[in-house]
């Protein structure tokens, strides 16, 4: 029934605060052609295209997939858009996966992107809040995650220093990644003394806003055997995209219940019982430093409440036992639309052994995570170099 699916190529654009050299379709074209080239296929080999981008107000064009249809390779092909907020990159990758897993299509291009420099980012993000109930005081994503940070830090006694460490190591990792925007050499003190943007979140604990796009090529097992046996591929071993509500009863932002479930579902699909041991590398959607710790807990890399201890132990660093975000993570570049797909792309590069300077030696199994909405959508994809 379920067909095995592999990623045979990935593409990322150069990510910058403002890509003044291209319009949004141009950005998509860059990512799509990079992915096709990496996969060694042409558009003729692509059976369907699935597009993803975050809220339309970012570009100020409704249904931007229509605008980008040709540039994303969708001319006279199946083409539609997925939009799940921050997770959209991952949801689009997952949609690409289901296209092939269903048996409907052999080879599918999934492409995502956003050009955040076109509009006013925080103004657009504030439209995620209910107009009659809370939009008036919202400050985009920072104020939402600030609430999460407050609850998490208070509940588990996580210190500001522990949070700052995440901001430091991610930017350090970013120095190995040509696609990262913020490649910084920071100290914990610098992070802690950077100005607050929405307490307890400080400027250096927040992601930048970027222009960029990413794309992936998925294909079937049969196709890999027939045509692509000679190259490294990343097999998709487990996927899950779980949602929780916004203001449901007994909610605590310190407890990422949707992520706990999504991770379990994905682990079950690929027989992972001890993620800390069985995963070789993790790419997570850490838009703010504190989320590095929360998501690590949600993914089962440590016990609940032990995120602080985990980062203190150095386990998440490049030389630790579970390297996280070799790419520099979302803290180093965030296009929102493509961000969650970049996590999947980076995870694939790791298991394909194509991650260059940011390669975790011998990485066989990697996990990519995404979050979105009002901290309510969670996605997990596990990829491996073996079927």
């Amino acid at each position, binding site marked *: 029934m379920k067909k095995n699916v592999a990623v045979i190529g990935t593409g990322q654009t150069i990510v910058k605060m403002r890509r003044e050299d291209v*319009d949004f379709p141009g950005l998509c*074209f860059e990512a799509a052609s990079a992915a096709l080239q990496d996969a060694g296929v042409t558009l003729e080999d692509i059976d369907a295209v699935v597009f993803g981008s975050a809220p339309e107000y970012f570009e100020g064009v409704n249904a931007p997939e229509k605008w980008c249809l*040709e540039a994303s390779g969708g001319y006279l092909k199946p083409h539609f858009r997925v939009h799940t907020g921050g997770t959209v990159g991952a949801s689009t990758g997952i949609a690409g996966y289901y296209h092939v897993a269903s048996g409907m299509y052999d080879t599918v291009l999934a492409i995502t992107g956003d050009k955040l420099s076109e*509009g006013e980012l925080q103004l657009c993000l504030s439209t995620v809040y209910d107009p009659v109930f809370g939009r008036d005081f919202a400050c985009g994503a920072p104020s939402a995650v600030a609430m999460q940070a407050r609850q998490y830090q208070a509940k588990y006694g996580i210190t500001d220093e522990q949070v700052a460490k995440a901001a430091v190591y991610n930017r350090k990792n970013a120095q190995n990644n040509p696609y990262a925007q913020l490649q910084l050499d920071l100290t914990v003190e610098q992070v802690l003394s950077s100005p607050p943007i929405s307490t307890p979140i400080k400027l250096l604990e927040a992601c930048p806003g970027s222009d960029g796009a990413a794309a992936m090529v998925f294909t079937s097992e049969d196709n890999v055997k027939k045509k692509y046996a000679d190259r490294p591929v990343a097999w998709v071993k487990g996927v899950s995209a779980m949602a929780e509500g916004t203001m449901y009863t007994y909610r605590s932002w310190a407890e990422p219940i949707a992520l706990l479930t999504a991770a379990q579902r994905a682990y079950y699909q690929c027989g992972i019982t001890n993620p800390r041991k069985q995963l070789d590398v993790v790419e997570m959607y850490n838009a703010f430093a504190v989320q590095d710790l929360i998501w690590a807990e949600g993914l089962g890399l440590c016990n609940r409440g032990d995120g602080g201890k985990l980062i203190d132990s150095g386990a998440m660093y490049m030389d630790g036992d579970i390297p996280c975000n070799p790419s520099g993570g979302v803290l180093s570049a965030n296009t929102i639309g493509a961000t969650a797909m970049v996590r999947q792309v980076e995870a694939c590069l790791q298991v394909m052994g194509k991650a260059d300077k940011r390669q975790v030696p011998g990485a066989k199994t990697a996990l990519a995570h995404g979050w979105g909405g009002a901290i309510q959508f969670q996605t997990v994809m596990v990829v491996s170099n073996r079927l």
Partner: protein
Amino acid sequence: MAEAKIMDGNITVPYSWTTGPAIGAFLTGMRDDMKLVGVKCSKCGQVVCPPRDVCPKCFIKNDDYVTVGPAGTVVAFSVIHLPNDDQPAEPPYTLALINLDGADTNLVYLLGDVDPDDVEHGMRVEPVWKEERYGYLSDLKHFKPL
């Protein structure tokens, strides 16, 4: 049931849209030289105006810019009577698909200096430029009958 309660509001966002090379060349040509720039696909040879960076059919990047028009032929038109926000003129006004000379595709543009009742398929039109031009589509006031 309680009386329906409504909140009237709006979302207003300012933008600075990046044109990309092709639309940039198009708007620059209009502003500086009052000319209409198209792009010729290096593979299929189609001349597209307004130009696009990517040929939809060939999926390749194009930068072979050519000048088209300025005159063209009306291939389809509609007289817009319905008033709405952000329209290019007071209704009734005429929008047309104009096949510019030398282009293989059509430009959607406003017709002027003509009674809507007199517009015909196949009518020849030419652009009327504004005195002050800023690199926006509105630098071209409208097309009028030749």
